[in-house]
């Protein structure tokens, strides 16, 4: 009754092709954005429940936003273009470390040429975006094998990127500005004179970036490029026969995806972690992102958000529930139980709905259209 598009006539092609053609969807999105942009900061500023402490902002909303952004990037590559990648963590790391190097100034001595490349420290926003571009470059480089290799073979090939960059950031001290401990600290987040410090400010910053990127990504996948990606995903040989260039389509997918993942990595390091080690971007992170994309739904921007929320919140819940219930379990047992429950949940979800939460939502929408009648 509520979710019915009867009476909403589309008089122009533009209306028909709109990003949210149904009025109820537009209202729901506006409400959601209103809550995210105005409601949450207001509640957090005046410390009203559930924002009495910074816990919800710091431990859940901030990582959720950034990981959702990284999941969108992964989804463009895996979900829209069908190229399985286990190297997302590495691209996050490239974004983070490039942004760090650019924000603290780059100095490459070229002794044999007699001069040095020196770039002065750049503003934070510029270095975060440039970090994204560096990740995009690395993505294109490691995407080249995708022209010859497919499927799970490609997945293992992308592992090369993961392990190579893990090693590089750990072992080559140039990347960490010769920090003795190997961990680096983010510079102060100065945006045109406005310094972002408190959790609410950080949240708003991430929210703005994620919103802009998500809108861009959504429009990209609806357009020419996105359709090329999907054609390649569905059957690459057939796509080639109808005139889609695999080289261009695959490499743009790698570039766009790595750019978004790189920006997410820079945000993760600068805004969320503050100081970090290469371990923050290990293979576990790559697998986590892949889980988010698959549980959320391959080929769905909204699915990326839901998947990110699920993968982030379930372990936290599994951690909190036994303590809340007061079960007499050792921390070790709880950790092992977490593993078991998380693993079984993933298997269960994959069996029950291999197309992820996005599919469940579209089924729900269909049902809601007819509700309360069965047909």
């Amino acid at each position: 009754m509520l979710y019915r598009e009867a009476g909403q006539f589309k008089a122009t092609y533009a209306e028909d092709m709109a990003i949210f053609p149904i009025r109820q969807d537009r209202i729901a999105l506006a409400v959601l954005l209103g809550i995210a942009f105005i409601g949450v900061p207001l509640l957090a500023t005046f410390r009203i429940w559930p924002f009495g402490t910074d816990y919800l902002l710091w431990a859940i909303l901030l990582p959720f936003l950034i990981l959702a952004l990284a999941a969108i990037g992964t989804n463009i590559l895996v979900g829209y273009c069908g190229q399985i990648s286990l190297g997302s963590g590495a691209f996050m790391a490239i974004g983070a470390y490039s942004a760090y190097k650019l924000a603290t100034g780059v100095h490459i001595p070229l002794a044999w040429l007699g001069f040095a490349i020196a770039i002065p420290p750049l503003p934070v926003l510029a270095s975060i975006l440039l970090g994204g571009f560096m990740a995009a470059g690395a993505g294109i480089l490691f995407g080249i094998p995708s022209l010859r290799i497919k499927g799970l073979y490609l997945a293992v090939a992308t592992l090369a990127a993961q392990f190579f960059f893990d090693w590089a950031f750990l072992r080559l001290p140039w990347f960490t500005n010769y920090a003795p401990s190997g961990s680096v600290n983010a510079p102060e987040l100065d945006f045109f004179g406005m310094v972002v410090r408190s959790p609410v400010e950080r949240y708003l910053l991430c929210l703005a970036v994620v919103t802009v990127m998500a809108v861009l990504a959504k429009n990209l996948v609806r357009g020419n490029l996105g359709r090329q990606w999907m054609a390649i995903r569905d059957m690459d040989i057939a796509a080639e026969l109808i005139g889609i260039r695999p080289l261009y389509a695959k490499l743009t997918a790698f570039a766009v995806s790595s750019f978004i993942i790189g920006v997410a990595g820079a945000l993760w390091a600068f805004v969320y972690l503050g100081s970090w080690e290469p371990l923050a971007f290990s293979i576990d992170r790559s697998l986590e992102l892949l889980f988010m994309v698959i549980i959320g739904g391959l080929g769905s921007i909204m699915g990326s958000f839901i998947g990110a929320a699920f993968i982030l919140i379930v372990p936290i819940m599994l951690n909190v529930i036994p303590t809340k219930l007061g079960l007499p379990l050792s921390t070790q047992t709880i950790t092992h139980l977490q593993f078991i429950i998380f693993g079984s949940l993933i298997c269960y979800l994959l069996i029950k709905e291999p197309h992820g939460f996005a599919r469940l939502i579209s089924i729900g929408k269909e049902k809601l259209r007819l509700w309360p009648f069965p047909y």
Partner: protein
Amino acid sequence: MIALGQFLEVLIGGLMSGVLYSLVALGFVLIFKASGVFNYAQGAMVLLAGLALVRALDLLVANGLPLWVAVILAIGFAAVIMAATAWLIERFVIGPLVNQDGLTLFMSTIGVTFVIEGAAEMIFGSDVYPLRLFPTDAWFLFEGLFPGGILVNKLDVWGALIAGVLVAGLAVFFQRTKTGRALRAVADDHLAAHSIGIPISWIWFVVWLVAGLVALVAATVWGTKLGVQFSITFLALKALPVLIIGGLTSIPGAIVGGLIVGAGEKLAEVYLGPSIGGGIEYWFAYVLALAVLLLRPQGLFGERIIERV
């Protein structure tokens, strides 16, 4: 002569540790051939088998049984555990997911990995357990030819012997037995195999069981080398480039790939490592796999991939 001696020593050490990678890779190949599942859980299965074996062995020896009886009983116990795991995986994960695409199956095996790791450590404990089934001291060969001789670890030789016996055994099993033939039929085309009356779910159970037993063998060797501990699961990741180099569907490929990776990474570590910062063992195998894939996308021994629209 010192340089040549050192080179040979590194090469032999690398080849031998490559054999151990092959032991893990074999399990992957068996499952991929028969069911098209890229089984990330193989490393976790090695951990589970190793933990079951070493804990049962410790318990039996502590109760005063002679060592050889205890070893046989413990291996039997671990085999039963692997059979139960195989049945559970087939019944509750792989069976319901039949006909899903490779990525979904791969992710489900990561879920299985979490479950196995959690359960194995919860039941059998999560410390480092030393396992002493094989001698771990070293031989020095050709002492007359090279100063100091060439150091060869006895355990590595045992590992190579076991791998050889295992591959021969698997070859006989696949070529000569009725179940082995059925396995190959399922690997070729599972719908056709189903239609001529081969029970698919039974075959898949057998495949997972064989992979579990291969994991048990790998666990005895790796457990003796490193002690049975959680880090054994990372072997699964090291076995991936081995598979890719050898080809996902080839048993000899798993062995050859293991040898190439083992020798390559040891040689690279010794001869290239010092000039670019050390620790390149960490990624060398993957970059090697990438290079092989660019030349031969199906791996060295993999079946040629023919695509049709």
